[in-house]
């Protein structure tokens, strides 16, 4: 994360910094703004979650932002195709840190029902961007999305913002970053003659 380069992960574990971290994490988990970004069937369930019966806003996560610059959570709701994958990668890169990704439904998690013969379907969005939470279902029920959101909140609650990371945590983060940076290099841009 690069939000606070001077302060981030530089402090010893003690009462003061644990408390500060706890407060920061509490603010972050209480206000997860998702991006208005629907791909397929799951997007309709996402809309249903936003609406009155389920009301995502209760968790402070109802402020759907249309632009990636202002959102914290990217809910990949639906099947990711190769044509779309490049755009998703770019959208992810446009989001500011700290950012989280939820793969909603089996299509986004692993290709789902389109795994076998889906020549144009990406077999899981985690091939191009790191995913924090996988929500199973085709499409997942709204309750499942809530469960995913609560799990994500739990994940944020235990993050270390100012405190120093242990070597294991550091290595996990480094490895993920390296993996997806490599993937980025591999993604070749669309040939010039096909660009509109």
């Amino acid at each position, binding site marked *: 994360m690069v939000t606070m380069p001077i302060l981030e992960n530089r402090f010893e574990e003690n009462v003061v910094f644990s408390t500060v971290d706890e407060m920061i994490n509490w603010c972050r988990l209480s206000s997860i703004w998702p991006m208005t970004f629907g791909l397929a069937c799951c997007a309709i369930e996402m809309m*249903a979650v936003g609406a009155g019966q389920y009301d995502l806003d209760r968790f402070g996560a109802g402020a759907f932002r249309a632009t990636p610059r202002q959102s914290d959570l990217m809910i990949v709701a639906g099947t990711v*195709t190769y044509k779309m994958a490049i755009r998703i990668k770019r959208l992810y890169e446009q989001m500011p840190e700290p950012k989280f990704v939820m793969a909603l439904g089996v299509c986004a998690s692993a290709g789902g029902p389109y795994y076998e013969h889906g020549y144009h379907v990406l077999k899981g969005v985690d091939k191009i961007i790191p995913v924090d939470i996988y929500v199973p279902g085709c499409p997942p*029920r709204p309750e499942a999305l809530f469960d995913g959101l609560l799990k994500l909140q739990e994940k944020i609650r235990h993050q270390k913002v100012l405190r120093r990371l242990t070597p294991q945590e550091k290595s996990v983060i480094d490895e993920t970053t390296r993996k997806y940076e490599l993937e980025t290099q591999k993604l070749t841009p669309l040939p010039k003659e096909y660009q509109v």
Partner: protein
Amino acid sequence: MTSSREFRSQEIYVNMGPQHPSTHGVLRLMLRTDGEIVSDVAPMIGYLHRCAEKYGESGTYQMMIPYTDRMDYLAGMNCNWAYCLAVEKLGNVVVPERAEYIRILVGELNRIASHLIAFGTYGLDLGAFTPFFYALDEREKILDLFEMVCGARLTYSYFRIGGVAADLPEGWVKRCHEFIDFFRKRIDEFNELLTYNYIFIRRTANIGVIPANMAVDYGCTGPVLRGSGMRRDTRVDEPYGLYPRLRFHIPIGMGEKGSVGDCWDRYMVRIREMEQSCDIIKQVLKSMPEKGDVRAKVPKAFKPPKGEVYVRSESSKGELGFYLISDGTDRPYRVKARSPSLSNLCVLPAISDGMMIADLVATLGSLDIVMGEIDR
């Protein structure tokens, strides 16, 4: 005198989508704009191409049904129905009477659910947020009814070749009655909130006019064609199921607030269709046999004779057709879905010349497209 050419400012290309709040999914529109005026629109589709036709050829006839759900994910029942109709015609399967009635029930309920989404998101496109929430509240009640019959909220797979998966559960008919009675009054509330709002009328009347002959030429069907004043409905023109037994009215656009075929007409056709669907459901609930088979006996390895068939049905978006070729085995040789949204969308470049960006959004919303169905 200076010609208007000298005043022309620089035209810019704007990329609208695939991630844009008002493109209803992953549609991408390339706009050439001169200030606020749109001079050219090029829709680009395929961001949700999920190879459904390949799946049709790769599995047995039954295995395609779940994939039809995911084509038009707002009206899964209607897609199931269209596919099953095609297979049944190919294999000469006769569907029991009660099953036909149940099919009409769930099909019409799903039409209402789909139109509710169209209504709600149209409000969002025009900047009114609250209708969306009201519409989705009502839709949840329909989804509850669907959950009772098949356990799913969105992708039902309730239809089987030769009938439906299961009979209606106990108490379903009563709840359906209650919902319909409640919903009829609710439509009036929707009208008060959005339909007859002055700003709404100003934003939709005389915008995006599709003349009737153009609509036919571009293959528009469903509410888009009816909004242009053509009284076309596959349920009446080429009746399937038990529709001939039912009495209902086909609403068309009449140019009440502007000219025939504008956004308001298309929108209003959907609102009136919801009322008609309510009437149909009431009739069906009244005349449906109490008991009976809901599924014809169809072998597991269903092998229709060689041949091919194109069957169309009226989905909530328009004419949904399935072209099936059988080579005598238990797998279809070719499955082609003719999706109404594809044809409805392809009219957009023709009518959007000289519009403002806000009008383009309004027009796109009034076409009510579903990307899952366009890209398949």
